[in-house]
């Protein structure tokens, strides 16, 4: 089976000269389809930078990232947008929902960008809402939802476009224990039922315990990469 994500010799340096910060140093990584992998490590270890590189949000200083067999170097901004739209789902720490749209509209928005017809958009969004356990709350705006509910909407938004991989950066950081566990369970069940691949940057032990692969980063390098039986 070919990996979904391949990183080879990936390095990222911010700044120049004495002020240069080496956020990533020669990282090699493969993410396999169906993986639910956690990316852990202390602050500044390079988790977010690596997620940004894989998510085509930032460019490496050197090295190569491929997503679904497509090398990201040298492709245009517009092609990168298409890649993010069709192959990558994002879940952010602060949910990052569009405040003026309802839960359903937030989910539909990604499909609208993909050019999916209105009726199909509606059906798929409602299905995603049901899947994340928010039926009946589809018309609520983010401001009227709890943090846990908002993060579920964010997960639904990330999944509705049927991406190749979902990148989640500290998805439980703003959630209480109950909501955090529910979110982890949700990602686990989506992974089991649909084979969705997750790469999760986290400090949260509960998330790490539920992952099938645990990648530890230190000083911009992968310190350990171990599979578990979870």
């Amino acid at each position, binding site marked *: 089976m070919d990996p979904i994500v391949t990183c080879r010799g990936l390095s990222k340096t911010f700044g120049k000269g004495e002020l240069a910060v080496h956020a990533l140093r020669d990282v090699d990584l493969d993410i396999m389809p169906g993986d639910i992998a956690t990316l852990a490590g202390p602050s500044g270890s390079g988790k*977010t930078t690596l*997620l*940004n590189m894989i*998510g085509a*949000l*930032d460019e490496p200083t050197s090295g190569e990232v491929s997503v679904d067999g497509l090398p990201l170097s040298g492709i245009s*901004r*517009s092609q990168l*947008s*298409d*890649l*993010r*739209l*069709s192959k990558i789902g*994002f879940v*952010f*720490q*602060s949910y*990052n929902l*569009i*405040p*003026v*749209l309802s839960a359903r509209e937030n989910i539909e*928005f*990604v499909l*609208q*960008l*993909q*050019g999916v*017809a*209105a009726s199909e958009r509606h059906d798929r969004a409602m299905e995603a809402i049901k899947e994340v356990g928010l039926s009946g709350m589809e018309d609520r705006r983010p401001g009227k939802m709890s943090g846990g509910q908002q993060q579920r909407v964010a997960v639904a*938004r990330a999944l509705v476009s049927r991406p190749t991989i979902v990148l989640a*950066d*500290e998805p439980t950081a703003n959630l209480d224990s109950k909501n955090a566990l529910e979110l982890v369970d949700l990602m686990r069940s989506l992974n089991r039922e649909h084979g969705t691949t997750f790469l999760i940057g986290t400090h949260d032990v509960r998330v790490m315990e539920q992952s099938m692969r645990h990648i530890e980063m230190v000083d911009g390098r992968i310190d350990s990469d171990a599979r578990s039986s979870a």
Partner: protein
Amino acid sequence: MIDGLKTMLPLAWRNLWRNPRRTGITLIVVAIGVWSILFFNAFMIAWAKSSKETTLQLLLGSGQIHAEGYMDDPSIETLMDPPDQNLTSALEAPAVGDWTTRVVVPGVVQSEYKTLPATIVGVDPTAEARISSIPGKIAEGRYLNSSDDDSAVLGLHMVERLKTGLGRRVILMSQNTEGGMSEQSFDVVGIYDADKATESLYVFTGRAASQMFLGLEGEIAQIVFVLQEEMALEDTVAALAEAAPALDVRSWKDLNLFLASMDSYMGVFIHVWLGIVFALMAIGIVNTQLMAVFERTQEFGLLRALGMKPRRVLMMVTIENALLIGVGVLLGMVLAAVTIWSVSDGIDFSAFARAMEMVQTGEIIYLDYEPDAFILFPGLIWLLGILVALWPARRASKCRPVEAMRRET
């Protein structure tokens, strides 16, 4: 594309109301700008029209015919015969509303206290009443009865300066056809109230009476005509010139260059005002929209991260701006329409009578809707506003998606 717009429009509209205060300020700025342009335009046009009508109706008419050389030397030596049959036919054309003849010569007017320079005007009172507003401006006494009436009608200001009055006598003096001076005593039967410059200069008497006083045998100084329609001015002047090739036919535009300049530069004034207002509005629009874009940097980063292309971000922000400026423009139009409607009975400037007299405008200015202006100016402001707001929109579209992630850490 249409589907995209369907999604973008409600989103853009909701985005506008995320910061009601800022949106409100921008709406007010645009609305006041549009209102001021439309109101100023209507006011300037009404003022120019009033000024023009007041001046034309006073003595000028739509145009005048003189003997060649009269305009350079308006004396008894440059008079002309009454209109011949050819010219009379041209003056009876449907485009000409009315016409009359006058004797106009320089002279002096003398009371028992003072002698003042004057322009002596011999008129046919009946025809004059159809051409000039002076017969309707009699403040005391009466206007002239007939062409043979050898009384005098003086302006208020001249009466004050001469220390004379109704029922008193004044002496008019002017050069006669023999080269000598004619002088004759006239009863002051009426005092008219016009603008100070006219009141100080013109003394009216009957045309036949003035011809007798000057020793003329029917000669006149000018034919004054007014038109049914201003549009026919150039054609009518040309037709009259053709009917009287030996005479000097001039439109009011040639006779009163200041008025003509004001008339033709009115459009320029309006556009200068439009430019000033737009520049102020543009500063307001760009400032508020830049602020909005800066505040939403994270959101634009998110949109880009989700896969929204830069041109769609540009389109989204541009739609927001188009809606915002469009609503402001509509508000301004409604405000202007209501304001103009509320003063449709005229704006009374009688409290500033002296100032209005200086600019030769009626004391009441009647504003009217200018349908072309109501389409052109708001449309122009809307388009220019969108163009100016492209700058902040472009900044939004250039936002790097990594910003959304970076702000998370």
